[in-house]
């Protein structure tokens, strides 16, 4: 142990001579783990919110109403719901302290039936009398009561064998006071006979969820988690390049120390152990800073994410950030693993270091051989991941495929740069001696420089890729939305009388009314939304179908076919002309698919059928909305008359402009997090390049001395260095754009269809590429200039003095 600490002391003492590298190592790990841990917090919050509602749904008897953000609903919510005509029963559901028993509080008078065996009522037994006498009743099985012999003395225990083990049911007021939840409930059970999904809750803080929601929440949660996790991982990866270079350089400087340690007989294992211990100590410290940074970043990002998942998917959210010791350790563990991984090459190099140089032609170089094995495996792995993403439901395969394509790109980048340098060196006229020296110098410090450029390449290509996908999506979405919202007014219908009145007014002003009606059905054991509509020429002109037969509109008008949404077609692998077996309102129908339409932003499985066909399943249902088309001159009069004849409010009549605005707002929000993370990644990459250039400048000071002694000036070298960085940056930009287009293509063709259920036609955005190109050039220019400044290479005199002192 003594020996271990002595060696560790020597190893750690090396940082005294490499304070800059220590700073950048700490900073690199801290930045990387900040990004990772913030994403982790965001994901945990999302998953927690989804899990809450899924857990509740799994145990609830009916559709339930929960609060969007809080883990409880209030007495006040209950009163307001009942006053609005909503039939709901409050329920409390919580674990009993220090046990694995769940205690459920219900309104015994309203909900008593479900406690008792079937066919019995409270009145059949003396429970009602006991309840009326103010006794706190607690129902449960004998086995459950045995587990809490000494607990809950104030309750009167009633054994009912049919209540599942580890569940207790009591009167809601008594359970409230037991759990200190006065004025609060876990959720409300919705007790209308059948759930009409078009019912709108009068309170904005509440949301109605049913059995179908559980699956949707899981789907949304997974999609979001994967999306954000992938970005977090990429940012983490880019951040770790800083660690890779700073530790690589620091380890190069300690080669002599390690050589001496090996020469005097310190065991290789002990040296490696101390090196790993040192890295873990650094990552513990930096990871802790990163965890704190992650918390701050998550606090900034979370409102946007909550906004998105709450608005677009009507999904519950969790506004508060929960931090736990296990999350902290997990963040630090990830920082440690990332550090070890990014330092593995430097560690292997030191491990392979011999006390003396040995010449052996057949020398086996573990690091090099490992690289060759990894390179050889990359292509088959990429194909395997591609195959799995296209054929299986393994969602992580999609990101592994994208990841492996990016790794292939990163592997090829240094090779392409080397080829380029080799080509230039061949073609350069002999009189450009300084340029030739610079090329050789670039090749010498290639490993460090390429690491910086790989980070840069990653960030640029991710930016181009994400922008390409999102902007293509947006432009497709806007066009689609414009077509989809073809009418001047969309009016929600409350009842048949109102419908008739509205239709009369529409007729009077020569308008056209298009009723939209919706209900639910099942396909392949899964819930689907079914829309009934009049497939008139307006729809034919405005609703572009992604895939259709030539007479698709005629056939749907005749009720021979249906149209399915792209999401449903991708998820259930439905093709044009397939026959679907649908189960609608206890009836079955076998019908052919005549077209596939886009329905961006909607996570539900959906299909559309002719209105008459729809009515065969739901004969008494009236349309929920009518779209009204009017000549411009009639619009004002129509609106005035409609307002005077029909009671309408802001919720009844929908302004299409408002819908467009809201939809685009939701759209922008959905991808805000992706853009934010992509930009952070670009910033981190520019910083990585900067730290690399500093490292290189420090390492090459001795190499520069002969150049100055020959008579070249500092300014000449700086100018040439800038030219070199300019050429390399532009080359990397060019390759990044190519890689970005590939990333956009994969996001659009593989990831989006598998995660969200839609495929977007990819477009190119040269204007954005130019912007990114300029940003990259500015960033690399400043990185070069600042790195010269940081390396004290500002003035000739200072530079020469420094150089001479260092040899």
């Amino acid at each position, binding site marked *: 142990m*003594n*020996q271990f600490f*002595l*060696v560790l002391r*020597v190893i750690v*003492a*090396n*940082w*005294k*001579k490499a304070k800059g590298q220590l700073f950048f190592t700490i900073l690199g790990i801290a930045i990387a783990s900040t990004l990772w841990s913030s994403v982790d917090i965001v994901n945990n919050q999302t998953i927690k919110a989804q899990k809450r509602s899924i857990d509740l749904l799994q145990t609830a008897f009916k559709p339930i109403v929960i609060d969007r953000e809080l883990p409880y609903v209030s007495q006040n919510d209950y009163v307001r719901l009942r006053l609005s005509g909503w039939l709901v029963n409050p329920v409390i559901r919580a674990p009993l302290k220090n046990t694995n028993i769940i205690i459920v509080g219900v309104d015994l008078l309203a909900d008593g039936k479900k406690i008792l065996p079937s066919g019995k009522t409270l009145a059949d037994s003396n429970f009602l009398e006991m309840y009326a006498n103010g006794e706190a009743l607690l129902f449960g099985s004998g086995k459950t009561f045995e587990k809490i012999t000494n607990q809950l003395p104030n309750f009167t225990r009633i054994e009912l064998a049919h209540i599942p083990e580890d569940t207790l049911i009591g009167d809601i007021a008594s359970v409230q006071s037991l759990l200190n939840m006065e004025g609060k409930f876990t959720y409300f059970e919705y007790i209308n006979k059948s759930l009409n999904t078009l019912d709108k809750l009068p309170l904005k803080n509440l949301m109605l969820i049913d059995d179908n929601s559980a699956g949707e929440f899981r789907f949304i949660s997974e999609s979001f988690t994967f999306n954000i996790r992938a970005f977090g991982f990429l940012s983490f990866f880019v951040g770790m390049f800083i660690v890779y270079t700073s530790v690589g350089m620091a380890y190069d400087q*300690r080669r*002599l*120390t390690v*050589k*001496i340690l090996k*020469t*005097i*007989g*310190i*065991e*290789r*294992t002990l040296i490696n152990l101390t090196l790993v211990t040192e890295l873990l100590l650094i990552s513990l410290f930096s990871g802790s800073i990163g965890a704190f940074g992650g918390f701050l970043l998550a606090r900034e990002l979370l409102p946007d994410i909550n906004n998105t998942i709450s608005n677009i998917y009507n999904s519950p959210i969790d506004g508060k950030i929960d931090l736990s010791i296990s999350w902290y350790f997990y963040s630090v563990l990830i920082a440690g693993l990332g550090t070890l991984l990014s330092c593995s090459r430097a560690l292997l190099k030191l491990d392979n270091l*011999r*006390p*003396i140089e*040995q*010449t*052996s*032609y*057949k020398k086996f170089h573990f690091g090099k051989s490992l690289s060759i094995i990894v390179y050889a495996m990359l292509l088959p792995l990429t194909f395997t991941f591609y195959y799995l993403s296209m054929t299986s439901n393994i969602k992580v395969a999609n990101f592994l495929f994208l990841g492996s394509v990016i790794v292939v790109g990163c592997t090829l980048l240094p090779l392409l740069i080397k080829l380029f340098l080799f080509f230039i060196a061949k073609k350069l006229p002999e009189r450009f001696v300084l340029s030739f020296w610079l090329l050789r110098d670039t090749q010498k410090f290639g490993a460090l420089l390429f690491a910086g450029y790989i980070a840069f390449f990653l960030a640029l290509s991710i930016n181009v890729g994400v922008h390409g996908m999102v902007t293509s999506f947006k432009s497709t979405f806007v066009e689609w939305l414009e077509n989809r919202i073809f009418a001047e007014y969309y009016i929600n219908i409350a009842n048949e009388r109102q419908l008739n009145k509205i239709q009369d007014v529409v007729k009077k002003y020569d308008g056209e009314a298009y009723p939209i009606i919706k209900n639910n059905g099942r396909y392949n054991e899964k819930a689907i939304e079914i829309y009934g509509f009049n497939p008139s020429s307006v729809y034919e002109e405005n609703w572009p179908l992604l895939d259709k037969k030539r007479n698709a509109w005629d056939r749907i008008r005749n009720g021979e076919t249906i149209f399915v949404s792209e999401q449903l077609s991708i998820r259930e692998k439905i093709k044009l002309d397939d026959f679907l077996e649908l189960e609608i309102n206890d009836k079955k129908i076998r019908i052919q698919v005549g077209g596939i339409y886009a329905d961006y932003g909607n996570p539900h499985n959906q299909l559309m059928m002719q209105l008459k066909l729809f009515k065969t399943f739901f004969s008494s249902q009236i349309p929920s909305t009518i779209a009204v088309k009017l000549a411009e001159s009639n619009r004002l009069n129509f609106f005035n008359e409609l307002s005077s004849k029909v009671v309408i409010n802001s919720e009844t009549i929908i302004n299409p402009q408002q819908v467009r605005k809201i939809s685009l707002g939701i759209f922008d929000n959905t991808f805000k997090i992706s853009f934010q993370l992509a930009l952070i990644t670009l910033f981190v990459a520019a910083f990585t390049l900067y730290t690399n250039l500093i490292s290189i400048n420090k390492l090459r000071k001795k190499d520069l001395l002969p150049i100055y002694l020959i008579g070249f000036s500092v300014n000449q070298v700086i100018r040439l260095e800038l030219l070199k960085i300019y050429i390399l940056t532009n080359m990397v930009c060019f390759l990044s754009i190519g890689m970005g287009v590939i990333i956009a293509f994969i996001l659009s063709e593989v990831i989006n269809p598998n995660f969200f259920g839609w495929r977007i036609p990819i477009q190119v955005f040269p204007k954005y590429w130019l912007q990114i190109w300029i940003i990259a050039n500015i960033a690399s220019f400043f990185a070069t200039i600042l790195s010269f400044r940081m390396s004290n290479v500002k003035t000739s005199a200072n530079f020469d003095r420094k150089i001479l002192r260092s040899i």
Partner: protein
Amino acid sequence: MKDHIVEIKDVSKIFFTKSGSLELFTDVNINFCASTSYALIGESGVGKSTLLHIASGLEKPSTGEVFVGNQNFWDLKASAQALLRLNETAIIFQQYNLIPCLSVKENIEFQSRVNKKHNNEYINAIIDDLQIARLLGEWPENLSGGEQQRVAIARALAAQPKILFADEPTGSLDEKNSKIVLDMLLNINRKYNTSLVVITHSLAIASKLEVCLELKSRKISKK
């Protein structure tokens, strides 16, 4: 008859290069005995340093055996080899090889602390003998070549090795400093009974050592 510290038996060394194999030396047999000083001479490129590395356990011979005490060095596990190097031998290079992040004092004490032979009185005596007391707080980079070499010798001796290998210890020093360093090595050999093996090009230096071995035409011979 003195005990042997390191014995080299039928050792040869072949290097494989792109242009083919190169035999540096063959059937080399040497007994390095206790308290004896050896000079190893030969032209540049004959393999003196390689032979020294083989003798000190830093490099494996192509054929033959190396015994440290009675133990066949290359039959031992890596950890046992490291332990022998740590306790029995020390090596001084032409380029001093001091640990740059440790002060002079820390450099001197380091190996002795690791092999648990740290003895303050003993180390102070060496420091006095080598006249480096005033340098103890300095960093290696601030020392002259002669000073760095003396610190390297002090570090090697502080670990109380049975045998000290020196690979051209005066190669990068001027005449005055070379003489100082050599006198110190001889003094140490006598005072602390440490065997000494010195690679040198100088016949004048070789003549001051007890045994002179010459590596020539791939063979070793006494001169």
